[in-house]
């Protein structure tokens, strides 16, 4: 094991997949000599050259549509969209083409395509540049949507995504690239599946379900709760679609209480979808209503001080947990 950043783990995964399979190539805006807006592809242009590391014109729809074409043509494109916000310009290609061709063409063509893009706020990028939007894509049958939160997961999941025969929306987070974590030594091959969540902290009093950057906020909240005698189990969804419902239900059976913590908006989003699933499959095990921690129901404010208030934080998670864990339970 060694400790590396999320960014470096991602780059290693891309590089190793490019070395493993010569059909893998990457394309996007500013990804070649510049190395990507978030420096993920740094050095890959120098190593693999223009044939496999392509700077494109500034046009999300054709980047995505052409990558679908390339996938149909037998290649394995990994495309980078500068942020999930700009994927909206490619959403027709993603939802109407990538997600449907396998189905509409009777299972003949596969679309082994990975769309990488960061989502989320916290970097003072304003209303049009700070959205999560994973929920929008997770609504669509035919897509896989994943949100790895740690260096270990991002490396293992990117590898799985490249090898997967389906289109995978690989949603990173602008504030995750610099976080560090343990990753197996170079040359030690591993993958992380695209349909499994993970218990990131075992606990008995309450289950806190989260994903992406909020995992790290939740882990801190769990530490605070521990000081007050509340032992929280933290589940990192990792995969938004398909969702690892069994893992959630098993945890609820143990703790009987649930907080869902996400960065995105409240209504009709990932959190509400999860709550509905838990009510559907684990209603009898719940001892309290599910609590939902989420971003303010507004476009993201631009200023640092306001953005901080519009985003869910550790305090909100602690408060939500304490609201449903009775005092008699804590310390047991």
């Amino acid at each position: 094991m060694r400790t590396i950043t999320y960014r470096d783990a991602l780059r290693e995964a891309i590089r190793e997949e490019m070395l493993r399979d010569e059909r893998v190539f990457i394309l996007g805006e500013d990804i070649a000599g510049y190395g990507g807006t978030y420096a993920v592809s740094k050095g890959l242009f120098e190593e693999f050259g223009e044939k496999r590391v392509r700077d494109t014109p500034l046009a999300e729809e054709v980047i995505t549509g052409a990558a679908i074409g390339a996938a149909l043509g037998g290649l394995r494109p990994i495309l980078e969209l500068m942020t999930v916000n700009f994927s909206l310009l490619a959403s027709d290609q993603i939802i109407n083409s990538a997600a449907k061709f396998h189905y509409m063409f009777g299972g003949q063509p596969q679309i082994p395509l990975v769309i990488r893009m960061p989502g989320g706020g916290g970097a003072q990028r304003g209303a049009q540049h700070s959205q999560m939007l994973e929920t929008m894509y997770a609504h669509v049958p035919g897509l896989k949507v994943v949100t790895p939160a740690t260096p270990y997961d991002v490396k293992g999941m990117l590898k799985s995504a490249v090898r997967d025969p389906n289109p995978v929306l690989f949603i990173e987070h602008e504030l995750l690239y610099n976080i560090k974590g343990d990753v197996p030594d170079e040359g030690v091959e591993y993958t992380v599946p695209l349909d499994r969540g993970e218990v990131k902290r075992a606990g008995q009093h309450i289950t806190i379900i989260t994903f992406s950057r909020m995992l790290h906020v939740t882990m801190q909240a769990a530490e605070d709760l521990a000081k007050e005698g509340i032992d929280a189990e933290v589940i990192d969804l990792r995969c938004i679609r398909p969702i690892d419902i069994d893992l959630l239900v098993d945890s609820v059976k143990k703790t009987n209480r649930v907080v869902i913590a996400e960065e995105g908006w409240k209504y009709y989003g990932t959190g509400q979808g999860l709550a509905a699933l838990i009510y559907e499959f684990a209603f009898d095990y719940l001892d309290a209503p599910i609590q939902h921690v989420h971003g303010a129901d507004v476009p993201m404010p631009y200023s640092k001080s306001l953005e901080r208030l519009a985003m869910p934080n550790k305090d909100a998670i602690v408060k939500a947990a304490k609201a449903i864990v009775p005092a008699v339970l804590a310390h047991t």
Partner: protein
Amino acid sequence: MAIQTDPGLVPYQILDAGGNLVGKMPGISAERMLSLYRSMQVGRVFSNKIIALQRQGRATTFGSLVGQEATAVGLAAPMQPQDWLATSYREIASLIVKGVPIPTLAYSFRGFTPENWPAETHCLPVQIVIGTQMLHAVGLAMAAKIAGDPAVAVGVCGDGATSEGDFNEALNFAGVFQAPVVLVVQNNGWAISVPRSKQSAASTFAARGEGFGVPARLVDGNDILAVYDTMSKAIENARAGNGPTLVETLTYRIGAHTTADDPTRYRDAAEVEAWRARDPIARFQKFLIARDLLAEQRVQQLIEEVEEEINEAVRIAESMPPMAPDSFFDYVAATLSPRQQAQRADLLRYINQVIQ
């Protein structure tokens, strides 16, 4: 004068890089020229000031407009108050010319949404999603035509934006509906790290006009008189009911893409130096001095006056109260839903209990 359909490859110039008159002088008063000159200085000083504030943590991300002052000022100066301007983040100087108060802009670069955004200036707030504003400009122009208003719309985007579907769809609509719009491509050579040559295999963006049946002009974007003259004609042509024009201005982004970028990583210092030699302000200044319209000794004084004006605007912006902590619930929609009101009350409770 009829607008040329075939832009050719030679950009329209009135002043060469040395400030010599090489074209026909447009009908423009000395006073007007001095005001254009001053506006270019305002643009440059404002840009440098916000970047300096950003370095001190007092402003948000900002994209330098240095080197592009002639285009930014020249495209807005011929516009009338009722005309609409839809820009990207790069044309702050155009907004100033169109009448947006500088303190309002400085306040917005503190990250706050100015409540008093001057709607009467008919400037749309700056657009971050590349190319989108071109659609809105066409729609504004169509509305003016339908309503019979004598308003023209100007939409401005960068060279990178021409690759987006939005740009091409806007151009097509403009042509089909003969909208009174001028679509400007501010070709500054770069889209972050991607050079102009990688956006299109065509030698000009102006050439795209022909494919959409929209007359086009290619202009030296560092020649304020050429930009002003071209825009005046295109705007009045549109106002007269003769439809849209596409204008490509050739200029150069001397600075970094934004305060988050380091351009030395991807471009040659020599290229930047070559463009510095074509500096739009120096060029016009030489011309004005040679014509005795501006005294050489006056230049430094004028720059200092402009700096004082910008410093004062920043002082005003910094003395304006920050937006109230719960203010981001304002204007999410014309009215807040009961749920949003409840969230707002929760937030206020949290601020009172935890933060204060």
